[in-house]
Each structure stands twice: as structure tokens, then as C-alpha cells.
């Protein structure tokens, strides 16, 4: 494959003397550079690109047109909940009072911001029937790690941190990683033929060394763990805690409350469920909510209200696991989620989940005659189809994924969960219209027919995008991890 440069970097576009703004000559005398120790003094050029505003604007607009994003087309990336993010969220987050607020501007200077955090926490706790929350974690995996540290602190307080955390083989890969990072041993159980946790297998490995069981509900196959109350009773029976990975909360809001079905701890992904940008547009935010008995262990500071109902940062929590994030978390993401929640209200949130489930099942009904479906349970807001039906033509899931780009769609999540060969994990979300879902289904059906009639076309795909099929193996084997700065910069 030859390299095709379709847009240079800003450094290569740089021309000496160009600038985006003309500043008056400074009337402040230049500082005495000798006060800076020699080894810390920059002698060479600073190396920043020099460009006019219009060049910068065109560069980034051009890059945005080369990429696929949710403002451009359907993005049914399973488990990621790539819903359309309303632009009003951005307007609120850009308000000077929020965007220009210094994180250390405390007391009367930041009352509004702390109130936003308090209200957001209260709304999130209300959705899941939990009692306390931290907004600090910067993403979902950070939330898992925080939640597990809280569980560890709880068990330590009771005299024994315990050893194991149990999780199903359909779990997100971040779950076992978080378990190891928090000092526990991951113990995996196999899913049954319906895609659900095998209760008997769980019963056999639960012990007084079990610190927690981590479940995603609905699980990564999109299927609701219908035995969750029985599981919760078994887990609590050995003194362990039940953790919910909230990645799939978009299926449940206003319908099922995790706290009411036995989950002691969970993390949210504001950047999935609550419509703040992610996938390069982040940053993320992964709040962790808990039931009362775990509240003392949450990271400091916790936003709570005083006797006058005024919110404040509570640092006086001796059992806290400590601070887990710079400042107070990704605050502007919280503002966006607050706006989203206030715009929808509780009725609206329920409708979000109902439409997410309906859209997913409609899409599945349209394509299920053409693709495989390994597990028999009825999925909710996402489903895991697979490309095994096309294997006889030499077509794998990656070929389907690449060909979808030719039809203007992003691919579903590929090759996950690991228990489904050739997986195409599809989550259209509630923000797609029937016309949009039909267009995607039509493309999927057309691709299945192309696989039989002209498999070579699929092997070559994508053919209409600015860059064609990448050599992913070469990219992984021969890593180029930084842009080589030319000598003359």
C-alpha cells in the first residue's frame, strides 16, 4: 500500500511570519533571562506552527470531513451509546461562568458550580436508587477502579479485604483490568446458552473470599440478567458486594433502578447515557454511586448539603479512599449532563430508554435473516449479531464493517464480546429515526448479498473513503508512535 497524504499537519502547513492575531508591541520590558537557570532556559525556537486563522479553520474543518462522526452519520457502536449530543449542552458548558471558572475559586465565587454538581449527583442517585455519589472519576474504567477501591475499603474496615472479584466472560475488558489494579483476583464464569450468568456456576465459586461480583446489566449481549435479584441475594449471603458496570444504563432509565434490584455500587458513563461527547470528543466522566453503607468510603471531597440546604465540599470523611482525580472531576462534562437531564425530565428519560430498546429490536428484526445471532435471549438496547453466516464466502466481520463505510455508516463494535466469533455488536440508540434505521438495515442486507455475489468487493472495501483499507497488521507490527519533526522546524 502506498502512503497517500490528503492533508498535511499544521506544522508542515506553517509559514514563517503568518499569525492568527496581530498584537501591539509590548510596552513591558523583557525580563532578565539570567534569573532562569541555564538548563531550564529555551535557546532554540519554540517550534509552534505559524498560520493565519483561515488556514487553521480550513485545516480542522477538512479533517472533520475526512472522519466519520455522529454529526455526520449513524454510529451504531455497541456498548458505546453513540447517541447524538444536543448542541444546547455545549451552549451551557460554554457559558463564561462555567467555562472560565477557576477550580480553586471556592465559597461565594463558585456556588453555582457546586450547586450544579449537587443537583447532578442527586438526579443520578434518583435514577438508580442509590444514596451517595462521587462525580470525580474521569471515565468508565476510572469509575470501576474507584468503585472497587470503595469496596476494598469497606471490607478492610470489616477486618478482611478478601481476595476475589467474580465476573462473567461477557464482561468489558476494563472490568478484569480494574479488578487487578485494585489488588483483587479476577475469577471468570461462563455465560449460559441464553447469554446470562450461569447461577449454578456462580454458586459454586462464591465464598467468603469473594469481595464483589461485577455485572453489566443488561449485559454486553444486550440481554437483561433476569436472575439479578437471586444473584444479589447469593452475593450478599457471603458478605460480598454487587457492582454494576453502568455502560448499558441507556436501556433501563425510568424502568429498572439498579439500587432496587440489589446493586450496591455502580458507575455511570455520562459520555454515553447522558449525552456528552466521547470517542475523541471527550473528555469522559464516570461518576460512582453507592448505597448508604458504602458512602463513608467515597473519594473526598463529597458534595453534600448543609443544614441550610447549601451544597459544599465535605473533606471530613476519615474512612474515605482519598482523592482520585485532579480538582473535582471533569466539571464541564457534568454541566452538559445536567442540561440533558433537566431538558428531558423523568418522563423523557424513560422514553429515551424505551426508544433505545425499540430502535435496537427493530433493526435486529430487519437484519436477523442475514446475520447470525449466537445467544437466544431477547436483547434490549443493543444486540450482538455476527458475520458467521458469511464465512462460507470468505467474509469476516471486518469486511462487513469496512464496507459499511462505503454506505456512509460507521461499523458496529467488532469482535466484542469475545464469546461471540465475528461479532457485530450493534447499538443504534434512541436518536435515530426510522428512516435512518432502515437505511442502515438496507446497507447491511445489501452487504450480505454482496458477500455471496462479489466477495472481492468486500475484501477491498472501503473504496469510497479518502483512505482505503488499512494494513492493520503492519500498523501494529511496525509502530510509528510520533510524527517525525523535520529538521528545519
Amino acid at each position, binding site marked *: 500500500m502506498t502512503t497517500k497524504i490528503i492533508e498535511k499537519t499544521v506544522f508542515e502547513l506553517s509559514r514563517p511570519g503568518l499569525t492568527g492575531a496581530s498584537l501591539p508591541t509590548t510596552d513591558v520590558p523583557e525580563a532578565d533571562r539570567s534569573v532562569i537557570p541555564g538548563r531550564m532556559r529555551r535557546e532554540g525556537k519554540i517550534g509552534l506552527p505559524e498560520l493565519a486563522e483561515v488556514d487553521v479553520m480550513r485545516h480542522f474543518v477538512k479533517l472533520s470531513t475526512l472522519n466519520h462522526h455522529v454529526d455526520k452519520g449513524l454510529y451504531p457502536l455497541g456498548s458505546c451509546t453513540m447517541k447524538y449530543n444536543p448542541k444546547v449542552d455545549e451552549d451551557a458548558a460554554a457559558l463564561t461562568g462555567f467555562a472560565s471558572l477557576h477550580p480553586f475559586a471556592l465559597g461565594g465565587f463558585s456556588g453555582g458550580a457546586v450547586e450544579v454538581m449537587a443537583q447532578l449527583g442527586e438526579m443520578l442517585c434518583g435514577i438508580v436508587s442509590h444514596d451517595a455519589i462521587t462525580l470525580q472519576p474521569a471515565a468508565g474504567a476510572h469509575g470501576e477502579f474507584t468503585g472497587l477501591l470503595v469496596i476494598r475499603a469497606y471490607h478492610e474496615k470489616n477486618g478482611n479485604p478478601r481476595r476475589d472479584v467474580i465476573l462473567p466472560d461477557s464482561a468489558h475488558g476494563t472490568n478484569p483490568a480494574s479488578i487487578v489494579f485494585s489488588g483483587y483476583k479476577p475469577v471468570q464464569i461462563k455465560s449460559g446458552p441464553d447469554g446470562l450468568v450461569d447461577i449454578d456456576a456462580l454458586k459454586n465459586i462464591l465464598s467468603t473470599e469473594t469481595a464483589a461480583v461485577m455485572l453489566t446489566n443488561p449485559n454486553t449481549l444486550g440481554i437483561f440478567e433476569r436472575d439479578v435479584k437471586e444473584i444479589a441475594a447469593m452475593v450478599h449471603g457471603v458478605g460480598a458486594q454487587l457492582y454494576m458496570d453502568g455502560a448499558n444504563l441507556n436501556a433501563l432509565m425510568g424502568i429498572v433502578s439498579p439500587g432496587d434490584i440489589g446493586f450496591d455500587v455502580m458507575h455511570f458513563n455520562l459520555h454515553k447515557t447522558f449525552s456528552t461527547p466521547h470517542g475523541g470528543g471527550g473528555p469522559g466522566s464516570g461518576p460512582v454511586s453507592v448505597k448508604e453503607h458504602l458512602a463513608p468510603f467515597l473519594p473526598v471531597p463529597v458534595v453534600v448539603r448543609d443544614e441550610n440546604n447549601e451544597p459544599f465540599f465535605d473533606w471530613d470523611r476519615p474512612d474515605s479512599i482519598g482523592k482520585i482525580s485532579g480538582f473535582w472531576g471533569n466539571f464541564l462534562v457534568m454541566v452538559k449532563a445536567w442540561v440533558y437531564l433537566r431538558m428531558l425530565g423523568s418522563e423523557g428519560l424513560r422514553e429515551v430508554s424505551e426508544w433505545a430498546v425499540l430502535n435496537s429490536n427493530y433493526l435486529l428484526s430487519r437484519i436477523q435473516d442475514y446475520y447470525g445471532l449466537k445467544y437466544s435471549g431477547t436483547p434490549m438496547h443493543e444486540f450482538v449479531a455476527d458475520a458467521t453466516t458469511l464465512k462460507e464466502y470468505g467474509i*469476516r466481520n*471486518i469486511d462487513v464493517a469496512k464496507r459499511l463505510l462505503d454506505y456512509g455508516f460507521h461499523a458496529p463494535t*467488532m*469482535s466484542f464480546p*469475545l464469546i461471540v*466469533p465475528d461479532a457485530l455488536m450493534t447499538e443504534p440508540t434512541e436518536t435515530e429515526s426510522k428512516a435512518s434505521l432502515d437505511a442502515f438495515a438496507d446497507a447491511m442486507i445489501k452487504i450480505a448479498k454482496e458477500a455471496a455475489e462479489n466477495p472481492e468487493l468486500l475484501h477491498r472495501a472501503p473504496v469510497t473513503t479518502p483512505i482505503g483499507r488499512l494494513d*492493520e*497488521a503492519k500498523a*501494529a*507490527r511496525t509502530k510509528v508512535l510520533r510524527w517525525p519533526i523535520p529538521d528545519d522546524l
Partner: protein
Amino acid sequence: MVPDKLKYTKEHEWVDVDGDIAIVGITDYAQGELGDIVYVELSNVGEKVTQFESMGTIEAVKAVSDIYAPLSGEVVEVNAVLETAPEVVNRDPYGDGWFIKIKLDDIAEIDNLISPQEYKELIGE
């Protein structure tokens, strides 16, 4: 492609036993399912490995998987070619793409492995 002279594991490793030395690799079916292999990390010479426990990892474009020791013993040789050319596993899984040689602790452990016929049934051939 499942050679008759080898023994197999349910985790898709093959074993060729000669005296008290076993040569180990992954099957053609395994390399096909993994796709392009980009990195192989194995236990070092002199280290002990235990039957059916992890002795390394194999990284393909889409996933990272454990490699399990089919038999217990001491690692006596590791295929150095894989460090620089892991794609050999895709090209020649039963030949130049071998992984590791183990000096066996207990030859009787072979009884825990499966036959070519059983392996064929496992992968639906």
C-alpha cells in the same frame, strides 16, 4: 489442517513429544481465528511452566489471548524468530512458527491432552 502425529489442547495448542522434550505451538485453526498475529510473548528459558496454566500471550490485530502450557516442565528453548517476525505463526503454524520447547516433568500428563480426531471434532472439521 490437523496433523495426525501431534497431540492437542482444547485451547488450540499443539504438542510434538520426542523423548522428554515437547515442542509446542498453536494450531492452524487458532491462527486463522486470531487473524494477523503482531506480537508473541513467552516464558523465558529456564522458567517452569505448569500444565494448562498461562505461559505467555499472543497479540493479534483484534485481541490478545493467553497461551497455555500443554504440559508441565522447564522451558529449554524459545523460538527467537517470533520476536521479529510473528507473522511466521500465520504462515507456518506447525513448522517455523513453533513457540517453545519444554523439558517435561511428567510424561504421564500427555494423557490429559486430546487426539487429532478429538481436536477435529472440537473445531467442527
